[in-house]
């Protein structure tokens, strides 16, 4: 409850700030962006976050789960190594490296363009999902899997009826973290040819005008918090009831 009050207050403050700076119209020699600009850039921002997140959910969950399978256990070390390495790298570095890669994969030509920004965000946003899927499945009590095996469930039945539902809360948490992180990181994407609210923020940075920076930063924060809240709601709705009780008891 207290957390909810804090969240709502922050959102109200952020919205207030956005309205305040936008209504200024002009600061010094600079024209402020209009409400329409903010909406357009917000939409672009969300589109740029949507694709990495969509692929991140499928590929991250798939990879994270598959390395928990007995046959792939050797892979898990290298995959998880890569993940933690990527995680340790600053987001800026990941994005910058992507932009200078002299590579073309299918229709994606790396360079200073929108596609590069999307791929970079995908790679950075993949990590929380991958890590949580892996941990979610791996941390299921061994006794539960053993009794499922002992009762004659097939591998697929164990996967779909036991492992997936039990790992789901952890996986969705990973997706939520990834979404929030990606919304924030997407600010930087504008530097390698991306779109979105970063356009406003970096205009402010180059113009050395704090209020312009705020005009880009505040809506970004609103998007991140809003998306986080929505995803948490979905997460809560998807979590099996029996697991929620456990969380309440422990």
């Amino acid at each position, binding site marked *: 409850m207290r957390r909810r009050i804090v969240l709502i207050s922050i959102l109200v403050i952020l919205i207030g700030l956005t309205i305040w700076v936008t209504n200024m119209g002009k600061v010094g020699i600079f024209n402020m962006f209009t409400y329409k600009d903010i909406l357009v850039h917000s939409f672009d921002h969300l589109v740029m976050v949507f694709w990495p997140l969509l692929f991140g959910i499928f590929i991250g969950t798939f990879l994270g789960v598959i390395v928990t399978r007995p046959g792939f256990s050797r892979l898990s070390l290298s995959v998880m190594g890569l993940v933690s390495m990527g995680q340790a790298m600053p987001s800026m570095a990941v994005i910058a490296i992507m932009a200078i890669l002299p590579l073309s994969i299918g229709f994606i030509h790396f360079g200073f363009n929108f596609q590069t920004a999307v791929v970079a965000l995908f790679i950075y946003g993949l990590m929380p999902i991958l890590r949580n899927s892996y941990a979610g499945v791996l941390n299921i*009590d*061994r*006794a*539960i*899997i*053993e*009794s*499922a*095996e*002992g*009762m*004659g*469930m*097939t591998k697929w*039945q164990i996967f779909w009826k*036991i492992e997936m*539902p*039990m790992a789901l809360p952890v996986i969705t948490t990973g997706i939520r973290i990834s979404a929030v992180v990606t919304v924030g990181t997407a600010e930087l994407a504008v530097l390698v040819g991306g779109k979105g609210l970063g356009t406003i923020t970096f205009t402010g940075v180059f113009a050395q005008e704090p209020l312009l920076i705020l005009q880009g930063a505040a809506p970004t924060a609103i998007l991140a918090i809003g998306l986080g809240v929505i995803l948490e709601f979905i997460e809560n709705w998807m979590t*099996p*009831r*029996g*697991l929620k*009780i*456990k969380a*309440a*008891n422990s």
Partner: protein
Amino acid sequence: MIRLEHVSKIYPDGTKAVDDISLEVNEGEICVFLGPSGCGKTTTMKMINRLIPITSGTIFINDQDNIKVKTSDLRRDIGYAIQEIGLFTHMTVGQNIETVPVLKGWSKEKRAQRVAELLELVRLNPVEYGNKYPAELSGGQRQRVGVARALGADPPILLMDEPFGAIDPINRVELQAEFLKIQQKIKKTIIFVTHDIYEAIKMGDRIALMKDGKLVQYDTPANILYHPKDEFVEGFVGADRALKGLQLLRVKEVMNRDVITIQTDDTVNLARERLEKTGGDSLPVVTARGEFVGWTNVERLEGSATVNDAMQASSTATDENAVLNEALSLMMASGFKSLPIVDETGNLKGMLTMDAIQQALHEAIQSRETEA
């Protein structure tokens, strides 16, 4: 029912976890695999439902080689309960219990009926507990659900790996007793793994005592206690086993199963004949369906028209799972020199005599003397 022939388990690194074990478990019996940790008891058990692949030897279930049955089919016909229980925390108690029935494709009605039946069996109210989640139950309740789940599709065989190991001592004793009562009703063939000698004696019809992957002695609890095969067995059952024995021996180990009785509607002459034959001074009286109702003796038979008239009604009796020292005090209190052993319907199953108890005591003392 279950027959192990030269069963071995050798791991790739050369460790012999199970070394040439052969034994047969009779239908409807509880066979306890007993031994210190690392003796191979759990490994042996898990080779029966093939959770661990066998290295050499054969395991027959109803004379069928278990390797020739599809793994999932094999396991669905063998109940499985483990110490950690492993309840599916995201499913309700009812959903947990109907796991195997669902796998076997039972109809919804049949499953619901079975869940209610099993919850009754483990003494949990189906209405109250069926829709609860495992996290809402106490440890003992979870363990009961674990047992109910193992019995889900009414498998003829149960494998239980220290099923009461994680329960506190007071609740464990209660659960053990409860389970023995359940077993009297369901008569499953059970492999019960434990490292606890007390539990083994209490639960087991037979005990397979193991050490370093080898079967040291496969015998009744009484024989394990009083006729230990070697020093290892002797050491394992403990030096104070004479006392332990009386405390832990069950009535069924020492009771006399061939009891000469007289029915209420038999003639007085027949009763006299039977009394003479037994050489004792009193004769248990049963009804036509075998229910124990009382005693009769020569004095009472004198001048009576029917056995029924000559009978001294008595209801003092106990069941065959009673502990020996409890049965003894019951016998003392009743004033009779024998204690009738009855099943849950009251039918006479056997007789515990003072002689038998003395014999058991004598054996205990004797073996303690040889030890000293």
